[in-house]
């Protein structure tokens, strides 16, 4: 006679007693946790993408043509290929505003396969290497020199699309052949799918006449604000004095997306709260039935020496085992769903930033705790009821 017999082994035997019912309960908890993992991953991913983009821009202000701030955010956050332009002389007008420290500008060109380029639709970013502080730090790290005319460097995602490996390749952009001389590290921003060229190349693109852009036009100005100045005040000053532009403070980048996200978040919260309440009722109903079925056994156990706490422990261990298995399965399926369904959600499809291991672990731990706590919470009332029964009455209860 071996194998130690404990309260836990007794609880495990109880779990296995009615396999179908146990499986149904595990499946219900699993589905709930799966939905929690999916929702948290969704919300966290969008949130984190906005945060990273905002932090990595390195600029305090984003200045774009009036009504184009949404389009700029689409490029920066969601990899959407969009073009919008303003006159280049706005750069000097912004520079003259008090409190503006340094600034640089970029021009966005949309590549369309078959019309202008031999790359899938993506954004071509022409930047001014003389003033740039957005791309340069990465550029120095990757190729250690300035980009020459006719050269391009690509974002990490674009590299895959144009089959750029370690060797340099030539790619046609707006009728001009560009040598792809390097791949940038993954930034977690929308610019991961962009192709970067020097601003001087735009003149060549005009000559070929394949881009929908006029000479001396740019898309966006990135500005740093002098220390001691409030970016929001400078932004409103810019908007007040230059009617053709909108100025967005770094902290407001993605605000419209955040508002949308908040609504999605609310919808998730309501749905998950209802699902949680439903799960609590389900666990309550199942454990009420279990408590009734086992009243006599509980009475016998009490009669032969079990304390109320032992009965609670046995039931809680059962609930914990069911909750844990359900939660683990839910975490696995929820993670799989969040990865597989990414392609089905426009908002996620265009976000380049994936969750870090820490973020995923946090979501997993939180979901596990929620699943298990919901399970225990649902079973509490029936457990309380059964533990309070006088042993003889419990024995007589059929």
């Amino acid at each position, binding site marked *: 006679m071996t194998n130690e*017999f404990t309260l836990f082994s*007794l609880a495990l035997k109880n779990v296995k007693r009615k396999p179908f019912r146990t499986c149904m309960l595990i499946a219900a908890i699993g589905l709930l946790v799966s939905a929690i993992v999916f929702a948290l991953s969704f919300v966290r991913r969008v949130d984190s993408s906005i945060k990273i983009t905002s932090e990595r821009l390195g600029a305090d202000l984003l200045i774009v043509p009036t009504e184009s701030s949404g389009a700029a955010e689409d490029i920066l956050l969601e990899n959407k290929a969009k073009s919008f332009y303003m006159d280049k002389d706005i750069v000097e007008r912004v520079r003259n505003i008090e409190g503006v420290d340094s600034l640089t500008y970029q021009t966005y060109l949309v590549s369309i396969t078959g019309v202008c380029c031999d790359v899938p639709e993506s954004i071509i970013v022409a930047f001014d290497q003389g003033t740039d502080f957005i791309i340069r730090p990465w550029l120095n790290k990757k190729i250690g020199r300035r980009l020459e005319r006719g050269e391009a460097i690509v974002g990490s995602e674009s590299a895959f699309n144009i089959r750029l490996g370690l060797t340099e390749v030539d790619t046609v952009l707006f009728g001009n052949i560009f040598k792809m001389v390097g791949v940038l590290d993954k930034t977690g921003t929308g610019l991961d799918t962009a192709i970067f060229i020097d601003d001087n190349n735009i003149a060549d693109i005009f000559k070929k006449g394949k881009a929908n852009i006029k000479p001396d036009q740019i898309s966006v100005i990135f500005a740093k604000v002098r220390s001691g100045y409030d970016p929001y005040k400078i932004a409103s000053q810019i908007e007040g004095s230059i009617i053709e532009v909108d100025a967005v403070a770094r902290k407001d980048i993605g605000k419209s997306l955040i508002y949308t996200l908040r609504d999605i978040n609310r919808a998730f919260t309501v749905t998950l709260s209802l699902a949680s309440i439903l799960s609590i009722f389900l666990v309550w109903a199942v454990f009420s039935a279990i408590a009734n079925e086992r009243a006599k056994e509980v009475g016998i156990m009490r009669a032969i020496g079990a304390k109320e706490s032992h009965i609670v422990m046995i039931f809680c261990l059962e609930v914990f085992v069911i909750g844990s298995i359900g939660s683990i399965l839910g975490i696995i399926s929820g993670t799989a769903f969040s990865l597989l369904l990414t392609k089905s959600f426009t908002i996620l499809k265009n976000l380049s930033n994936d969750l870090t291991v820490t973020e995923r672990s946090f979501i997993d731990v939180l979901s596990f705790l929620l699943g298990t706590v919901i399970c225990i919470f649902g079973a509490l009332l029936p457990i309380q009821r059964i533990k309070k029964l006088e042993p003889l009455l419990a024995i007589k209860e059929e």
Partner: protein
Amino acid sequence: MSQIEIAGITKIYTVGELGIKAVDNISLKIEKGESLSIVGHSGSGKTTLLSIIGGLIRPTSGRVLFEGIDVYALDSNSISEYRCNKIGFVFQFASLLPILTVKENLLLPLIFRSAENPRDNSKGNEQKAAELLKMVGLGDRVDAYPSQLSGGQQRRIAIARAFMNDPEIILADEPTGDLDEKTEADMMNFFKFMNEEKGITFIMVTHNMELANKVKRQLKMSNGLIREL
């Protein structure tokens, strides 16, 4: 001091608005190592009295003193400890847990004790279970489940289980109900042995007068009242 002293115990069950007096102001003293039987018809209150002695159901009034300690003045945990450490129950119905093997059913009272004291010797417990099973003639059924046993075999397992925690008192409610004549005699001999050799107090409830006569002291219960025979 008597091992058990029952003083003015009354138990009234409330059914709807009706109060049914199962035990009516009973007082009784039981000495350590005594063996006694309580006979009576169905509904005479004998099972209720046995349950009250065993700490299974709180009396409406009166006291049960175990070695001078008022059992029902104790809190719920202490009453459980009283049942766990001092009492061995044999119920009048199949009282084995169906999901547990014979061995596990026997070890069941001890896991509640070892939950409090994890250093309890599990090897020793298993050995004791094996010995008790041998004594009730079922040494070869340790790994069987109750559903694989006859009613009589289940009863014998339940009898063996009552002795697992080295009780000071055995409370047996119709302990030989499902047994054939020979096994009944074997079990009564087993109880007698444990009572005489180990000094375990034996209190049995039965409606079988013949069986009641096999122990030294007989009491009769009727309508909640008790008298010596």
